[in-house]
């Protein structure tokens, strides 16, 4: 294996890692921290993707000169729209189901079907694509043998910025302290003086907003259709469960491990064999560490 191939494979692994991380961050908050099994999380990603698509169409028609920057508008719009939707979803549905995980599962699965149909009915039953902006076309070639696609580099940077922002919010701000207290013991957090209902709503909204950002950035890699969310949701749950719920760092490390494995296994084996071996490995790890790879050990 030459150095060029090695570097390309490592970059592919890094790219998959950041994609998985973007997908999993939102779910790590909604499922990992809050314990809500949100089967509609994938559809929220699709919603973010459609926001990007909407922004692209808007700029195309009304401000073609600004077309180069629609990406940022799309990401922002995706975050705002999906987190607002998440806020309403929590207030209108999820908060009545906190102690009923099975009902949550069914209700959110139903919601995912409704959303898919809404996309099909009101946007398009076909896959839609956004144009790649000029400054993300092509690849960066540090040497002759290495070509790193710019759109993937953009996603790497976006994922790192997003993860850093989430980390800062959770561990360096008063809001983060509230979120962590409520997710560890909701009743006690209330008795300590924290407005738990408000924290729940904002935390859920944040998780959904992150799904929006993920979906929005994936428009650079693939087209978006009504069932796009279904392709994302399984991988996302695997990353969160493998890393260990309640551990954000675990989610990130898990995304890294799975991303690198996917890249290297695919190089050596076929695509489906790679996926099968990763799933097998995840099962083995969860057999020996049911709380995930990075569960924190403390006296409860």
């Amino acid at each position, binding site marked *: 294996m030459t150095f060029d191939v090695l570097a390309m494979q490592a970059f592919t692994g890094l790219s998959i890692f950041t994609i998985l991380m973007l997908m999993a961050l939102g779910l790590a908050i909604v499922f990992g921290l809050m314990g809500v099994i949100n089967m509609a999380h994938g559809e929220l990603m699709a919603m973010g993707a459609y926001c990007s698509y909407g922004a692209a169409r808007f700029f195309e028609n009304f401000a073609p000169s600004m077309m180069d920057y629609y990406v940022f508008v799309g990401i922002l719009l995706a975050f705002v729209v999906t987190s607002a939707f998440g806020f309403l979803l929590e207030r209108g549905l999820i908060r009545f189901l906190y102690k009923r995980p099975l009902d949550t599962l069914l209700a959110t699965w139903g919601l995912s079907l409704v959303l898919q149909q809404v996309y099909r009915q009101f946007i398009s039953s076909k896959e839609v694509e956004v144009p790649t902006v000029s400054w993300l076309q092509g690849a960066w070639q540090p040497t002759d043998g290495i070509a790193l696609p710019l759109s993937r580099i953009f996603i790497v940077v976006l994922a790192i910025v997003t993860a850093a922002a989430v980390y800062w919010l959770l561990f360096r701000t008063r809001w983060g*302290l509230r979120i962590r207290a409520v997710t560890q013991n909701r009743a*006690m*957090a209330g*008795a300590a*003086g924290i407005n738990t209902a408000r924290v729940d709503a904002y935390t859920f909204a944040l998780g959904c907003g992150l799904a929006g950002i993920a979906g929005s950035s994936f428009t650079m890699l693939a087209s978006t259709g009504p069932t796009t969310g279904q392709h994302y949701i399984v991988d996302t749950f695997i990353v969160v469960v493998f890393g260990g719920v309640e551990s954000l760092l675990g989610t990130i490390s898990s995304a890294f491990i799975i991303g690198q494995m996917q890249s290297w296994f695919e190089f050596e084996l076929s695509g489906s064999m790679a996926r099968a071996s990763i799933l097998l490995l995840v099962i083995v790890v969860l057999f020996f560490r049911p709380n995930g790879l990075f569960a924190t050990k403390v*006296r409860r």
Partner: protein
Amino acid sequence: MLKVSGLNVYYGESHVIRDVAFDVAEGETVAIMGRNGMGKSTLLKSLIGMLPARSGEISLGGDLISGRPSFARVAAGMGFVPQGRMIFPYLTVEENILTGMENVVDKTVPAYVYDVFPVLAEMKTRRGGNLSGGQQQQLAIARALVSNPKVLILDEPTEGIQPSIIKDIAQALNRLKTDRGFSLVVSEQVLSFAVDVADRFLIIEKGEFVYEGPKETVDQARIHSYLTI
């Protein structure tokens, strides 16, 4: 300061607290004594709003607080230290204390906390879940104190804690009471601890108060007879 009247609390269909009424004066300490399963915890949990009351009124300094959610009762001046401590296991000691400061403008841990509980200053950056039972108890008290409560509620603070630490906690509470001037409601099975801190005793049996008496005239043998089977 705290006024409870006609309080009825149910666990599902079972009637646990029956028409309970009592008052706590400003600066007074009331010990609620009783055996396991007599309703001590249920009573205290319903005071802070962790359990809903079916009927009855709870008022704090003239403010009717029954019906409000827990956090609003804390804002009105209640502090709660639950049975089993319930500190946040993944938060550091300092973060645990900070969670109690929602209604305080200056969000830094006040110096008197570390003064009264020096062990918390040493353990500041450790996770709450890695502390011993006695340390967790002190942490839970500190977390409730920093909200500057008018009434502090302590549910079985001596449960599972070694005798020397129980003495320390009693001393710390007496010091804090005179310094900070709050009323205290404490549920207890350990008579010696209750005698150390309380001004008045209430005995609860099957969800009703069956005996009441101030410390001066208290018949320790009688209380003891209620605590033993």
